[in-house]
């Protein structure tokens, strides 16, 4: 469920578009420093993976289902800058090819799911990782906690955008309650799945988890 055209006013959408473009510029430069041409097919397959993982629906409450956002997952697996680039590419393809999310709302969706969900979520991951014992088992735990928190945080991004430029005169409290209520539940699914995915990758191919600082990877056991 990505924001379509017309829900948020044009000026606000343009403003967030500028924020998204600026963030993307920084992330693209950092990605180019860290990933060589060799890594482009790998980043692309991570994007395809996030896209496919988003298709796996899980039940939230009666009649409603949520799907993975994949922001923290991508950031932990390929690093925050590349994770942001990957999420941006996924959102552009969703909007351009699948009409999911408006073309003029692209900036809003990129800020919510890329900037808040992936980069912000990665920040949470590092905070939790620093607070837990230096073991490999802490990596999936920290990823799960960060993923759980990143989903309602991304939903709050929408609430903030709605407060600035929403085109409907609904009380903010109602929007906040509806968004937080559903997204805390989606966050539980996101956290559980992210934790198991990261645990699986850490167990079999530790070298692929690029978002983990080296000292943790070196000292853990």
């Amino acid at each position: 469920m990505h924001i379509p055209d017309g829900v948020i006013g044009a000026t606000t959408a343009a403003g967030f578009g500028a924020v998204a473009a600026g963030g993307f510029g920084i992330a693209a430069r950092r990605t180019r420093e860290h990933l060589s041409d060799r890594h482009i097919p790998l980043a692309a397959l991570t994007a395809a993976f996030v896209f496919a993982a988003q298709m796996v629906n899980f039940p939230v409450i009666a009649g409603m289902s949520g799907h993975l956002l994949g922001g923290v997952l991508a950031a932990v697996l390929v690093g925050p800058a590349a994770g942001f680039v990957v999420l941006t590419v996924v959102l552009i393809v969703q909007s351009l090819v699948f009409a999911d999310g408006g073309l003029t709302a692209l900036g809003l969706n990129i800020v919510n799911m890329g900037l808040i969900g992936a980069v912000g979520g990665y920040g949470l991951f590092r905070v939790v990782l620093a607070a837990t014992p230096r073991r490999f088992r802490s990596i999936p735990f920290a990823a799960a906690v960060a993923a759980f928190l990143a989903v309602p945080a991304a939903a709050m991004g929408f609430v903030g955008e709605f407060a600035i430029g929403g085109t409907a005169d609904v009380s903010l409290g109602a929007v906040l309650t509806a968004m937080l209520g559903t997204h805390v539940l989606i966050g539980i699914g996101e956290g559980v799945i992210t934790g198991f995915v990261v645990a699986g990758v850490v167990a079999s191919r530790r070298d692929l988890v690029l978002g983990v600082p080296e000292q943790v990877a070196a000292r853990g056991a």
Partner: protein
Amino acid sequence: MYRHGATPLHRWPPQVAIATTVGFVIAVVLTPREAMWAFGLYASMAIAALVLARLPPGFVGARLLVLAPFLIAAASLPLLEGPPDALWGLSREGLWDAWNIAAKGMLGATASVVLAATHEPPDLVTGLERLRVPRVVTAIMGFMVRYLELVVGEVARMRVAMRSRGHRARGVAAMAPVGRALGSLFIRVYERGERVFLAMASRGYRGTMPASGAVATASAWAAGAGVVVLAAVAATIAAVTT
């Protein structure tokens, strides 16, 4: 999602089609909601594009289903917003807001549907490249759209395998196997990416793909500009008169 055809819209160079779609949607979003005539014009432009591209209503309808949650939320606005000053105790302001979201959302999504139905994803990537979108994006996107079907197929096989072992997607406990399956999916997909890169490098890949899609002619650009100018003039008149 692509639908094969040989219409003028299918032959339209992808970069022109993308630029026209974006220009059209921006004009739609900037139009004041009270200007019904302008939305009538946009709708007839969108329908003309659907007819020109020979897209059946069922196909378009199925693609527009992604909007359903937002249309339901928009439909509740006349009840939620106060005061009940319109027919049947609905709110006038709420009706306008619902109309605004539904009209702009539908027009924007229809424009995307026409674009994606008339151009295959690799051509769209070439179009973005020619519109000077950063190469990191187009390079990643190019591989992504080429391998997407493969990965999605892998997910489908995993789901069949899980279901045949008795997995039912109910409750939080059912998510652990989903997570484990996705973990092994990531490793499979990543290792495939490594093999793909090595295979490509050995065949001479040096960071760019050969371009596909029609080259833009002046007349193609003129047609695209005509569409955008028509929508922009309507949006300007609507903004001035309301």
